């Protein structure tokens, strides 16, 4: 269940100042750290990865005065250490609440609702339309084949663009990352709004 967050504006400003003196760069760094914490929690099997990441950020923010004065090193590592402790706590709690014979399968989560699946498709469609025509065509061409045909097709695509196949892979990764952010936002917005 999402927890009510208690960060004041002053504290948040202080947190950003700790991350980088330039506010814009600090905001980017903040978002990178948050997304990384979410990914790490998800890879560690936490179903509420976002909640755990936010909790870690909240805890760090509460101590930001002290950290600014004493902490030496990359702030991202401090966020990570707090998040890691929280993940351990989370699993200790899960194991203490579940009968022993079920501990081995903490992954028996409820299946996704059909509504969510439909919305995902809608959002994917919507976000594909939001890509530039070049990027949309490129990603469609990149994923249209499988197995050996896929390798040949990607080589051909890279040649056509005048770049190496690995550079094409990076390009596609970046388009996909944009697409996934768009889908996430679209799904959040859809909880209260219509897809535009």
């Amino acid at each position, binding site marked *: 269940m999402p927890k009510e967050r208690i960060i004041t504006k002053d504290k948040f400003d202080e947190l950003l100042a700790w991350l980088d003196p330039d506010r814009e760069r600090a905001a980017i760094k903040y978002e990178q750290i948050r997304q990384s914490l979410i990914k790490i929690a998800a890879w560690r099997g936490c179903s509420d990865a976002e909640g755990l990441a936010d909790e870690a950020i909240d805890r760090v923010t509460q101590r930001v005065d002290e950290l600014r004065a004493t902490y030496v090193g990359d702030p991202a590592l401090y966020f990570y250490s707090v998040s890691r402790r929280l993940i351990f706590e989370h699993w200790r709690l899960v194991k203490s609440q579940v009968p022993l014979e079920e501990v081995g399968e903490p992954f028996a989560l409820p299946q996704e609702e059909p509504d969510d699946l439909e919305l995902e498709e809608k959002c994917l469609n919507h976000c594909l339309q939001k890509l530039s*025509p070049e990027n949309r065509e490129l990603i*469609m*061409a990149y994923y249209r084949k499988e197995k050996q045909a896929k390798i040949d097709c990607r080589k051909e695509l890279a040649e*056509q663009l005048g770049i190496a196949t690995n550079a094409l892979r990076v390009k596609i990764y970046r388009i996909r990352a944009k697409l996934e952010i768009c889908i996430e936002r679209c799904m959040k917005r859809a909880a209260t709004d219509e897809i535009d």
Partner: protein
Amino acid sequence: MRIKEANEDDQLIRRFLLGDVSEEERQRVEESFITDSVYSESVLMAENDLIEDYLEGDLPQAEKEQFDAHFLSTPRQRRKVRIAESLKKFAVAEAAAPSPATGEGRMPRQPQQRTSSNVLTLRKPLVILSLAAVLLIALGLGAWKIVGIRRENERREQAQTRRAAIEQELAQLNVRPGGTPSDARIFSTDLSPVVVRSSANSGMISPPAQTTVVELRLVLIGEEYQNYRASLQKFDSTDQFTIPGLRAESATGGKVVPVKIPARLLTRGIYQLRLRGDNGTGEPVEVGEYQFQLTNQAAR
């Protein structure tokens, strides 16, 4: 030496994503992931590659099991895989649709070169600015409507193209001799018409993850026809796909009409199949209604 290190790193990342690492290794990957943006990108790209291998059935059995048990353990990760799968489906369907101009599959177009327009050198900037503003507003209002209509038309065209590509694929699989690839992994099950189904046979199916084709053997009751036509529709969806030219065949205890569907086109949910017979008069005759529910994660 550097290549060797890179390969070891790639292997560590893959094992990390599959949950096959010690706590110490995990921490090492995670720390680099959160502090090093280049490393972070390489982990995320490896994740995309891993998902692709999984969707194409290219993972060795042990890795597939790790993927199912570890990688797919959270809703967020499952969504990532579903999105990747949908993206591939979109891309395949779009490629199958011939380009109107050439009749060939589509290739991405090169970014258009920008041409500089002629710049008018007028002497009264204020008048020009006012005129430009009026023109822009008028153009904006017109463009707003045009863009809206065009978008709607594009959406409709895309849906039609996608449906046509899917129906073509279904027809090829069911009607054309040799339409089923020799290496297809077929999951086959009998399906009784809705009116005679007992609770023991509720139409729930769970094809194994490696399935490439789901074959539904529609049990026939009553009169037999030379040809059949089935229409497939997912519950709560308006999309309907028609498969013509089906034929009955003998089975234990009666006749069945086999209908083959590429597993990757099916996602979890309830589907309805209506079977019609062709009695030679051109008027199709209702034969039966069949339902099935795909209960596992999307079949592959």
